[in-house]
């Protein structure tokens, strides 16, 4: 009798073991993607795909995971517990690709589909000749300004911005604030001067002469921008004490909650003393597919396509200020009428540069931030550049 009992147990184990191998043969399929983004927006994407594919029995679920980059690294090879695909920024693609956990996106989206996106958004997700990202929207830093506080016309040069800030500080107020020690937020000045954080050959650019020039000019803004920390500047702006702030679409909901009548200006509209314009980083947000999800290829391809329609892109722009990667959605009236989207599109067209997606970029944030802090505190720029360039080189060596 005891021996007989093993039969149903073995049958149960066999059935459950094979359960993961079903679905592509016509049965209902549930796809899961992870994200660390606005939950309402991600749930909207999931339901848009599910609605579009309900006749095919494909359900898409969005699961929020805090610290998604670490989670993806952890579950990158774990098909039982990991997602089928995930939503994230393009700059982490290189690291995942080196780990060998991503599938090339060309296996999931044909040339026509990928060709329907703005080239810059597809290129941003390319690493060592393979495209990994299915782009949905692009984002850049913009100048947010409080329409009730901003005095006079918006300057057209960075010197004008600096003069505005100095005047406002003299009056006891605050002009336009920025995290001037932060790599991402100081990048418009560095890139605008022709400098760089790291180049394609993974050489840090801290000691580059043009980087130093940009950092030195960025430092002139520091005395007019309080302590330049995220906590301080966001609070000053949200409390209606600062006239402007450098921020991106992720900050819009806080601004709305604070009841601020906010305007947006592209950083490409400010000319630097060298004749160029501010050049912020461009981030592209989209989907990347796990290599182990090969068994659900057809369903994933359909789900991705269902989320890359003009309707979805328009809704994302309208409700979440997302600048569409889909070229056909770029000119839709509801999209272009969104001031933030319009200014982001302008920045991307004029001067934004994609955030480097090579893995070495991941170790650049700390030495570059330390370099900026030193310069902003008035330390010798050449000495600081030499010191932190060496730190960056060491950090890159430590990766191997």
């Amino acid at each position, binding site marked *: 009798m005891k021996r007989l009992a093993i039969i149903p147990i073995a049958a149960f184990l066999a059935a459950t073991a094979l359960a993961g191998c079903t679905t592509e043969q016509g049965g209902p399929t549930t796809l899961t993607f992870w994200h660390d983004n606005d939950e309402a927006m991600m749930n909207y994407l999931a339901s848009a795909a599910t609605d579009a594919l309900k006749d095919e029995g494909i359900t898409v679920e969005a699961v929020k995971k805090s610290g998604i980059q670490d989670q993806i690294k952890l579950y990158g090879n774990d098909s039982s517990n990991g997602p089928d695909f995930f939503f994230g920024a393009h700059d982490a693609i290189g*690291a995942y690709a080196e780990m*060998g956990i991503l599938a090339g996106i060309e296996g999931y989206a044909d040339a026509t589909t990928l060709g329907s996106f703005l080239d810059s958004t597809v290129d941003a997700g390319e690493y060592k000749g393979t495209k990994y990202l299915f782009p949905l929207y692009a984002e850049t830093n913009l100048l947010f300004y409080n329409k009730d506080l901003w005095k006079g016309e918006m300057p057209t040069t960075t010197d004008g911005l600096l003069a505005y800030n100095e005047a406002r500080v003299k009056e006891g107020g605050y002009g336009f604030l920025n995290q001037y*020690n932060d790599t991402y937020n100081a990048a418009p000045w560095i890139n605008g001067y022709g400098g760089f954080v790291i180049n394609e050959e993974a050489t840090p650019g801290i000691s580059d002469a043009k980087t130093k020039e940009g950092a030195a000019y960025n430092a002139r803004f520091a005395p007019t921008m309080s*302590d330049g*920390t*995220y*906590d301080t500047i966001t609070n000053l702006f949200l409390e209606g004490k600062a006239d402007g702030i450098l921020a991106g679409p992720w900050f819009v909901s806080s601004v709305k909650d604070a009841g601020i009548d906010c305007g947006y200006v592209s950083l490409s509209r400010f000319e630097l003393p060298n004749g160029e314009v501010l050049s912020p980083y461009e981030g592209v947000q989209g989907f990347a597919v796990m290599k182990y999800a090969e068994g659900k290829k057809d369903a994933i391809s359909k789900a991705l396509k269902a989320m890359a329609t003009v309707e979805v892109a328009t809704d994302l722009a309208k409700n979440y200020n997302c600048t569409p990667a889909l070229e056909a959605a770029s000119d839709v009236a509801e999209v272009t009428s969104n001031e933030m989207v319009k200014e982001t599109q302008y920045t991307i067209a004029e001067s934004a540069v994609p955030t480097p997606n090579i893995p070495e970029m991941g170790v650049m944030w700390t030495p570059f931030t*330390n370099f900026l802090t030193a310069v902003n505190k008035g330390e010798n720029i050449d000495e600081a550049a030499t010191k932190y360039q060496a730190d960056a080189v060491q*950090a890159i060596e430590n990766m191997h």
Partner: protein
Amino acid sequence: MKGTARNERKRRYENSAYFYVAAILLLVALIVVFPIGYTVYISLTNMNLYHWFDFEFIGIGNYIRAFSQANSEFLSSLGLTILWTIANMVLITLVSLVLAVLLNVKGFKGRNVYKTLLMFPWAVPSYVSILLWRIGIFNGEFGLLGDIARALGSDSFYILQSYWGAFFASLLVNVWLSYPFTMTMMDGALQSIDQSLYEAARLDGAGFWRTTFNVSLPEIVPIVAPSLLMTAFMQFKQFDVVYLLTLQKGAQTGAGLQTIITYAHTTAFESNNYGLSSAISTIIFMLIALLFSRFAYREAKEGRN
């Protein structure tokens, strides 16, 4: 024959003890020994971003690397950690001792109220406390330090942006977070001192200072020494204060402060070099284990004597 049977029963009885503790030993092995063993194993491999799943055994390469780079951040962070531990222990011991002695002043009526208030830093989750210090005290715009600077006619400043400023700020927060434990231990030890010793001292004409140094301190040292040792190890591997004040993602202050444990964290989660990071973690573990075993040996020896 009888004796042999008794011995056999005794041996069986003793062996059965191993059976009863086997489950808990297995649990300890799983949650303590296995992670340590696995970390040591990873430290002997080249597990990094480029060999995430196909890592190989490379011997002690990561250890040589950690020590061989004379100017490396590893050695400077090790030096800073030693300074950090010493500074913390001196301050924590002094603050705790002073507070514990004051709480035990004879006839002090507010003892329980003050003791409860002094325990407050222990009651608040450290994550919350540290962020409150960062924003409420150290922030150049909204913090108390900035207000004081402005009241004195100086420009507001952000202490967490300079190396030594961040060090002293972290030290202050860490002492604030750590003193309740040692203070409680010292208070308990002071309470346990036989009152007749104080009476005898008083009869001999000893005042407050004399009784403190000649009665209280010698009596509490053997009791609080193990807790001070534990506190020292906790300071050596302290992570959250330095990380949350200066290195938190999105809120890095650029101070460049790295203790050995934040350096291990950076190597693992920024450089993605788990092999090197595990080697650093193992070195930290070995240092602590070595110091602790020396102390435990001395304690045992003193106990026997």
